[in-house]
Each structure stands twice: as C-alpha cells, then as structure tokens.
C-alpha cells in the first residue's frame, strides 16, 4: 500500500463497519451452508416439514402434553390405538389395536392389541402399556384432555385390556382410541408425566428422534417398525419457522410440506408450477356468525332468519377467504364427506340472498327498527374475519340493521365471547371425528353458562330441550345409523331454527411439493387430514408417501 494511498484514507474508520461485515460474510462462506441438504449416494432425500409457527423449539416430546410438546410426538413417535379419518366420518383403521368391543351399555371397552409390536428400545409392546397410559389419565386428571370418565383398567391378557368408565362413553371413542398416544410403561412409570419433558422418546411409531436443537429437530426411520417396508421417507427435518419465515421458505422452495396460511398462494407458492407445488385445503371446522341469543332482538327467530338471508356468503368466501374454502352447508355438517349426516329433508339446502324477504321478516318480528343496531366483535389478528365482518356490515345495512364492526385483541375477544358479553361475533368451531363434535360444541345446553361466566362452547347460549335430547341420544348409542339420525336431527334444527348462522368451512392448510415424494392425500383420495400439524394423521400421510416417479 503506497503512502499516498494511506494518506487519502485518513479516516479509515469510516470503512470499518463495511470491513467488519466483509469479514463476517467471508467467515460465513467458509462454512459453505447448503440448506437444500440433498442426500448423497442415491439415498432417498429428507423431507422438510413446517408444522406450526415457532421461533424456536423446547425439548419436549411427552405426548401427554398438549402444547409445548413438539409436533410429531404423537403419530411419528408414539401411536394411537386406531386411526380415525375425520375426512370420512365413521371410517376407522386398526392401528396398535386390532379391534375394540363395547359392553355394559358403553361403560366397558375391551381392546385387542396387535402382536409383534416393539418399542424402539426393543422392549415388546403389551397390554400393560395401554393400561398404564389410561391409568395415568385417571391418576393425573390435568392430563385428561379427552375428559374420559375412567374408573379402572384391567389387563386381561398380554394383548387384551379392558377399560371401565363411570358413564356411557360411546361418544368418547375418538378420545380413547383416536388421539390418545400410548406410552411405554417401563420408561414413564419412573417419571412424573405432568412435568416430564421426555427428551429421549421411545415409541412404537415409524420414526425415532435423531437430533434436536432449538432451531431444528430431525427424525430418522425406525428400522424395526411393525409395518414392513415402511416408512419410505428415511429422514424428517423440522426447522423452526416463524410466520414470516415460512412464507419465504415456501417461496424459496426449501419446505416440502407446510401447514401455513399463504396470502397470495399462486404468486408466493405455486409460482407457475401447479404440477409440483400443490395444495389441498379440506374443511376442518365451521366458521359461523354468532348472534348473542340473550339479546332480546336475536332471541326472535325472524330476526336471525332475516340476517341469514341478507348475508352474501359467496362474496365472503370469494373476497375475504380468497376462495380457499367453500360456503358451509346450512346444517353445519362438513361437506364433502358428511353426506350420511345431512338431514334428508334439507339435503340440497343452499344459501341464497333475499333482501326483500329479509326486510319482510324484520317487519313481522315486531322489533323496533331503532333497536337493530349492533356491534360485531372480531379478533383483529384474524384479518380474513375482519374483512368478512366488513362485508356482513354492508350486507346488513341493506335491510336496515346497523352494524359497527370492532376488531379487538385476540385475548379480549376470547374473553368477551366466552363470557357472552358481545352482540355478534364470528368464530370457528373445530370439527371432529364426526359432525357431532362441532354441533355439540355449538348447541349443547350444558355448555352455555350464564352471561358473565366463561363458557367453553355454545357461546350464543342456545337452550332447547329437543337439541339436548338429540345430543344425549347420540352419546347413548354405538350404532352408527342411530348416531347419524341424531346428527340429522341437530342439522335440521340448524337449518330451521338458526341458533347460529354457518358461514364457511375453516380450511386445513396443507402445501406439499411432489418433487421428492408422491402419494399425498387429495380431494380424490382424502385418506387423512393433509395438514402436517394434525396428529396422528400426519404420520399416516408419511406412511403413504413413495419416491417421486414411482
């Protein structure tokens, strides 16, 4: 460096930050990050999965935990007794159990287990493990998220176990066999299951945990898995993606399977390659317009009818929901899939806007038009619902119902809707193994608490003897035809009495690329919920995958 040059840069420090950055960049390059992670030597490539938005992971693989537990604990590592397909209500596949039998009017369930299944540490899986899992729920009521009324368990044989309940539990079948992961007694009996974080999980499932850091965890295939030749995908990678990062991850193609809401999916994700960058958003729940029935105006059926006639649901789905979903069936039964549960007389019911009839009904109701002024409460982080609320406000203005939409913080909204201190709101109801779950959450008189006390369902506070009888009828039988009939009755009440006004189905999000693997669930073959965040469905999807081009 010449002296002259040195002199010219008398203030060399002005360049310091840039020099420092250059050094950092060089340091980074020497590490040669290859995020694509293409496998060498012809081995099948890993699958990169985004399940939920998380900035970082905590080391928790205890399937008794609801939140905090890392995704994949149930399904990939721990398995359930059966697989219940929510997209085909009534369809169930034997899994760790080969069959179940009710006795004593739904108070006793005998489960026969699959033989030859082993925990990933080599210990055989037996009825002791199943009994231990359910005993744990009894011993620690705070883990009993399925609200099972367990009174005891009996091991009848190494492959047979009996569960006893204090009350008729037919309707809880899904909570027993469908979503309860079975844990290994010989490992869990030494721990407190409430606080145990299970960093080294040992399960019966198709994968074992192979690496964990707060930014990424990895699962490798369980070589001794009981389903021969499966799984085909050798490695699963779960990087931590925040809501921002997942969008760019999809855009740059580093994620193979995501369960994300993508605002402009054609531009951000499909990118002109609909053959490989696919998505499938089947209905997972029901989003409805709630009218607080403790308000005198909404207690009148004519007013509810008028409001339902005025709301243009097609426009809401198109404008606010970007056509990612469909308008709900007026019975609230998810379609397609729920055909058997539709009330026969309303099978072809459809929503149609009729402003004239709506106005006429309002007149008949005898409500003073000056009283038809309400606040529509929506959680402001849910921008699509905020848009839908605006559209509803416009629609209702046409029939003389004044609506002020108000977006509030999520917490505030949950609290107000739970306590019933609102006029109108939009809220989703989760689906379940059959349409009964959602309809019960919507309508069960037992769930409605007085205004001011937090309810866990029936936020509109619908009280109706016939409804409660149908709900009890369903729960009292194991006969599928009788259960369908009870749900049909509930659907009829939905259509005719309008306790809540269904709007559209809330979609399950699933974006998947067919570049590495094919065999994903689709509208033509809905064999499981396609979202990577749904357990144990996601494991069922993984077991269906095969390399692309085969």
């Amino acid at each position, binding site marked *: 460096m010449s002296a002259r040059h040195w002199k010219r840069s008398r203030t060399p420090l002005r360049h310091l930050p840039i020099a420092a950055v250059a050094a950092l960049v060089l340091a980074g390059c020497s590490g040669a*990050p290859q995020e694509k992670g293409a496998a060498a030597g012809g081995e099948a490539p890993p699958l990169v999965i985004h399940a939920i938005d998380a900035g970082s992971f905590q080391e*928790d693989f205890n399937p008794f935990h609801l939140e905090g537990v890392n995704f994949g604990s149930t399904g990939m590592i721990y398995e359930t007794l059966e697989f219940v397909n929510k997209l085909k209500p009534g369809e169930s596949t034997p899994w760790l159990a080969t069959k179940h039998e009710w006795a004593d009017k739904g108070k006793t369930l005998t489960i026969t287990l699959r033989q030859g299944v082993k925990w990933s540490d080599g210990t055989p899986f037996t009825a002791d493990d199943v009994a231990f899992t359910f005993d744990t729920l009894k011993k620690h009521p705070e883990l009993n998220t399925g609200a099972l009324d367990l009174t005891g368990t009996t091991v009848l044989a190494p492959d047979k176990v009996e569960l006893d309940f204090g009350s008729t539990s037919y309707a809880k079948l899904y909570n027993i066999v469908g979503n309860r992961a079975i844990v290994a007694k010989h490992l869990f009996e030494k721990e407190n299951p409430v606080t145990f974080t299970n960093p080294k999980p040992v399960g019966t499932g198709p994968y074992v945990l192979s690496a964990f850091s707060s930014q990424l965890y990895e699962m490798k295939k369980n070589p001794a898995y009981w389903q021969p030749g499966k799984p085909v995908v050798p490695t699963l990678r779960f990087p931590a993606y925040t809501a921002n*990062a997942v969008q760019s991850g999809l855009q740059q193609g580093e994620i193979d399977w995501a369960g994300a809401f993508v605002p402009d999916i054609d531009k951000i994700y499909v990118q002109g390659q609909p053959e490989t960058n696919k998505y499938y958003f089947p209905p997972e729940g029901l989003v409805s317009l709630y009218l607080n029935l403790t308000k005198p105006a909404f207690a009148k059926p004519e007013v509810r009818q008028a409001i339902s006639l005025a709301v243009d649901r097609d426009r809401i789905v198109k404008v606010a929901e970007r056509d990612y979903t469909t308008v709900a069936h007026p019975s609230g039964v998810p379609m397609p899939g729920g055909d058997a549960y539709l009330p026969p007389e309303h099978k072809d019911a459809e929503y149609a806007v009729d402003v004239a009839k709506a106005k006429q009904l309002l007149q008949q109701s005898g409500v003073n038009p000056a009283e038809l002024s309400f606040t529509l409460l929506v959680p402001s982080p849910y921008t699509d619902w905020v848009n839908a609320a605006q559209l509803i406000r416009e629609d209702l203005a046409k029939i003389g119902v004044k609506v002020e939409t108000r977006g509030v913080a999520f917490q505030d909204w949950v609290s107000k809707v*739970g306590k019933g201190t609102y006029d109108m709101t939009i809220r989703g109801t989760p689906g379940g193994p059959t349409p009964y779950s959602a309809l019960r959450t919507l309508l069960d008189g037992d769930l409605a608490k007085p205004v001011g006390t937090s309810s*866990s369902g029936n936020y509109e506070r619908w009280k109706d003897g016939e409804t409660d009888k149908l709900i009890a009828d369903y729960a009292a039988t194991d006969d599928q035809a009788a259960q369908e009939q009870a749900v049909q009755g509930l659907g009829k009440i939905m259509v005719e009495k309008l306790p809540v006004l269904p709007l559209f189905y809330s979609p399950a999000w699933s974006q998947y690329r067919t570049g590495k693997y094919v065999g994903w669930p689709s509208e033509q073959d809905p064999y499981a919920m396609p979202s990577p965040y749904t357990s144990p469905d996601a494991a069922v999807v993984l077991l269906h995958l095969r390399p692309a081009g085969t």
Partner: protein
Amino acid sequence: MRFLARRLGFYLLTAWAAVTLNFLIPRLMPGDPVDLLVARLKGNVDPAAIDAMKRAFGISDAGVWQQYLDYLGNLFHGELGRSITFFPTEVSTIIAGSLPWTVGLVGVATLLSYLVGTFLGVIVAWRRGSWLDGVLPATTFMHAVPYFWVALALVFVFGVTLRWFPVSRAYGLDVMPAFDGPFVSSVLYHAALPAITIVIASMADRILGMRNVMVTTLGEDYVVMAEAKGLTSRRVMWAYAARNAILPNITSFALSLGFVVGGSVLTEIVFSYPGIGSMLLKGVENEDFPLMQGIFLVISLAVLAANLLADLAYVVLDPRTRQEA
C-alpha cells in the same frame, strides 16, 4: 462510599417496585390462558377437560395477596415457574436458551455502534466546517427513520433480492450447536445482517449526541488553553475535549445496554431470531404469565444493573461525584 450506599438502597427499592409491577401487570390483561389455549388448539381439548387443565397450569383461584406472597417466595428461591406456552418447560430454561442469542447479537451490535458512533462524533466535531458536516443531514435522516423500516428494507435488498444474507434464524439448518468452525461461522453469518441494521439505526444517535456535546466542549477555556500551550491536536481532541464530552454519552450507553435485553423485540421479529424478544412476543400472545414475568424480571434487572454500572463509571470518570456532599 456513602454515595454508593445511597445508590444501592435506591436500587433495592426500585427492584422491589419492578418485581411487584411485574406481578400485577400480566394479571390486568383480559382473558384466561386456558381459554386462549382452547381457542387456539382447534378442538384437541374436550370442553369438559378445561377445569382439569387450569389445575395443570397452576392457575389458582387463590386471592391476589396469596398469589403475590407465593410469587415472592418462589422468586426468592430462584424459581420462575413453568411456562404455559411450552408447558412444562421451566421459564428459567427458556430464558437461559434465548438470552444468549439476544445478548450476543444486540449486545455486540450496541457496543459496536457506540464505539464507532462516538469515534465518528468526535471526528465530525473536531473537523466542523469541513465537508464532514455533510454527514449530519444523513444522520438526522437515519435518526428519524423507524428502525423496522430500515430493517425491512435491508432484508428485502440483501436478503430476499440479492440473497447475500440469510433472512431468518440464528444459524443454518445444516449445522448443529457445537463449539466448532462450521457452527460458529454459521452463527456469525446469520447475525451479520441483523447486527448491521442495529448498528445503522442506532449509530446516528451516537454521532449526533457526541458531536453536539463535543462542539460545546471545544469552546471551553481549558480547550483553548490546551491548544495555546501547543499540545498536539490529537491530545487536545481526546484527552481534553472528548473525555469531558463523553459523560452524557456514557449515561445513554448504559441505558441502552439495559435495553439490550428487552429492546430487541423488533429485530428479532423481523429476522425470526430466537432471542428473548421473540419469546416475550410469544408469551404476550399466549397470555403466558410465568414466561412474561420471567422475561420482564430479567429486563428490569438488566436495566438496573446497567444503571448501576453507569453510576460506577461516573465515579471513575468524574472526580466531582466522588466528593462527599
């Protein structure tokens, strides 16, 4: 010594107030964590199981006074409780896992911006009237632009468009945490862009602040005296002018050190950086009292500690504070 004792007493009082507010504020938020959990969990909870879950999370209906005493007692034993969002992981584990990222990134960036900014401020003041004054409008501009805007602009240009830098995470997915070359370089590579945004956004303040005080100081008699004695201009600039001008900047530095822990929320959100700011956001979203309380506690204590350090630095740098009043 009395000065220090008085300060320490003051800090203890402040710490108690912070701890108490820390207890009260989350409880003033509307809603209940379990109701929120149910709203978020999409039907994985049977409505009938909610009471059981409230018990699991330790949400008691005990009186506020009892809860406060329990809280103080646990705090005294160093127990921050278990997070609700990441139940049953302990809050202390979560903080231990995320704090190093924040302190590493924001701490280093703040220190860098302080050193470089102060240095530039001295130079710009010393050479006032030269072309260097042109730096001032630029710094005023940077001072006025909101931080997240700068960060997003840089992310867009250098991360998304040019792809020179990663736009999220603290390290690449191809490395696992270990004290080895690939991991360390991956961490540095991922920290570069967020660090640059912090330096750029905060350096303007330092340059302006230092320059303004320095210009005033340069008009003092003792500086003129020093120049008249024929001391080298370097000596006058650093030992006479800068040493006196730096005092206000030390205060602001100490304050910003305290805010390193808490003030990085925006950076961490923009860059999906797994630090304490992201955790705080998560805690607020999920109404996770124990997590929020733990993080607020760490933030308050950090601010207090930084202030104490500033006081001590003053004692060293400014002889006047050492005199007994």
